[in-house]
């Protein structure tokens, strides 16, 4: 099985632990991730001010993926959401499609319908399958409890995740966590937004949005929170100390990527999975792998 890997802006520069672990897990599952060094930004950061330009930028990536004939797989939820939505718009709105084609033509590119876009986690569930993941587990993580953080763009707008998962009652990440043998926590703030979307506009607000979940999970005492998006990671791990200070709250929640959890269960070492780059150390978890 092969897929074209879309890295986006943040993962290949700031979240190398996510990228390294995703590549290792993919290889172990027999999924070949094909690189394209020409991929750049997905267009999401432009959407608020100019959605037509954002759409053209997204279409550039879709046109490049189309050339490869492979499904496009993204590690970032904002990239996956933006590119899925763009494919949806371009397949249903001939007028906007025509405008986009005009803007791609000078680049020698054209959008052709039929490019399948998936977030890596969704691709694992839908294409690789939970059974295959379970078969590869050699070190079940039975003694650990993880709190899934779905984030917003993984499942919403719901129109794009219909038939896969329900944004109001999500289970997909829990199923992936449980495939590792670990327990997945159902908790009050499960569906809360990380706040990353407003970090640039209002840092105080962003921190408050992240804080509720961090406070609840500190009290719950989970092994770690499991994320699948670099922006969620910025809020929950990168901003964790600042949020604790701002809210004058006792906060300590290790944050790991889903692919790091799956990798451990598949017998890979914490070093191979980039755990050294995690800033809030999952001490309880790492102690078991010394």
């Amino acid at each position, binding site marked *: 099985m092969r897929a074209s890997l879309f890295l986006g802006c943040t993962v*290949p520069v*700031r979240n190398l632990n996510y990228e390294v672990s995703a590549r290792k897990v993919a290889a172990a599952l027999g999924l070949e991730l094909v690189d394209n060094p020409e991929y*750049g930004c997905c267009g999401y950061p432009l959407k608020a001010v100019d959605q037509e330009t954002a759409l053209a930028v997204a279409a550039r990536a879709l046109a490049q993926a189309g050339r490869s004939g492979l499904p496009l797989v993204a590690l970032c939820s904002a990239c996956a959401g933006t590119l899925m939505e763009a494919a949806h718009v371009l397949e249903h709105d001939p007028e906007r499609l025509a405008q986009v084609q005009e803007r791609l033509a000078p680049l020698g590119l054209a959008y052709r319908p039929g490019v399948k876009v998936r977030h890596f986690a969704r691709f694992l569930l839908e294409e690789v399958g939970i059974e295959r993941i379970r078969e590869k587990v050699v070190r079940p993580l039975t003694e650990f409890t993880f709190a899934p953080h779905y984030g917003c763009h993984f499942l919403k707008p719901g129109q794009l995740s219909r038939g896969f998962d329900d944004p*109001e009652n999500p289970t997909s990440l829990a199923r992936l966590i449980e495939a590792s043998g670990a327990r997945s926590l159902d908790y009050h703030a499960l569906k809360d937004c990380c706040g990353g979307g407003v970090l640039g*506009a209002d840092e105080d607000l962003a921190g408050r949005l992240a804080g509720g979940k961090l406070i609840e999970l500190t009290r719950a005492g989970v092994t770690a929170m499991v994320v699948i998006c670099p922006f969620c990671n910025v809020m929950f791990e990168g901003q964790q100390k600042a949020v604790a200070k701002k809210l004058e709250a006792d906060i300590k929640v290790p944050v790991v990527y889903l692919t790091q959890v799956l990798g451990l269960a598949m017998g890979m070492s914490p070093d191979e999975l980039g755990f050294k780059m995690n800033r809030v150390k999952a001490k309880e978890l790492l102690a078991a792998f010394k």
Partner: protein
Amino acid sequence: MRLNDCDPEFKHEIAATPGGAGIKACFACAGCSARCPVGGQRPDYDPRRIIRLALMGAREQVLASPLIWLCSSCYTCQEVCPQGVNFTEVLTAIKNLAAKAGQAPPSSKVIARQLAAHGRLLEVGEFENEKRAELGLPPVGECPGDYQAILGRSDAGEGEAA
């Protein structure tokens, strides 16, 4: 607010912008406001209020409001709306109109400039690729030319991008 100052065309303009079509279906139930996580922290941010102001035609008040840039685009409002208003997308339409009217926040120009210079939000130079190589990761490239061509006529950078 004086009714005479209102622009009855405003709602049609929003509805004609991609994503904005749902605004006229709002029957003001406030489901969006009840579930909005931003509103939970900042009561002055109220999706229903933004919709009502837009429907009444308070063009200036809406487009110049710093509040429209506080949406975290979590889509919660969109999922709970019984009328299919799709407020997250409606607000994107409103923000696009605000940007066209010269009201985009300064950060949007920084973003456009960065994309025009690197094709990415974060620069990838030798240092980044060396760090990647140490971890056995393949190099990533930059294609700023493609982005300059696409951004050339964008409202995001007002020409500065190219």
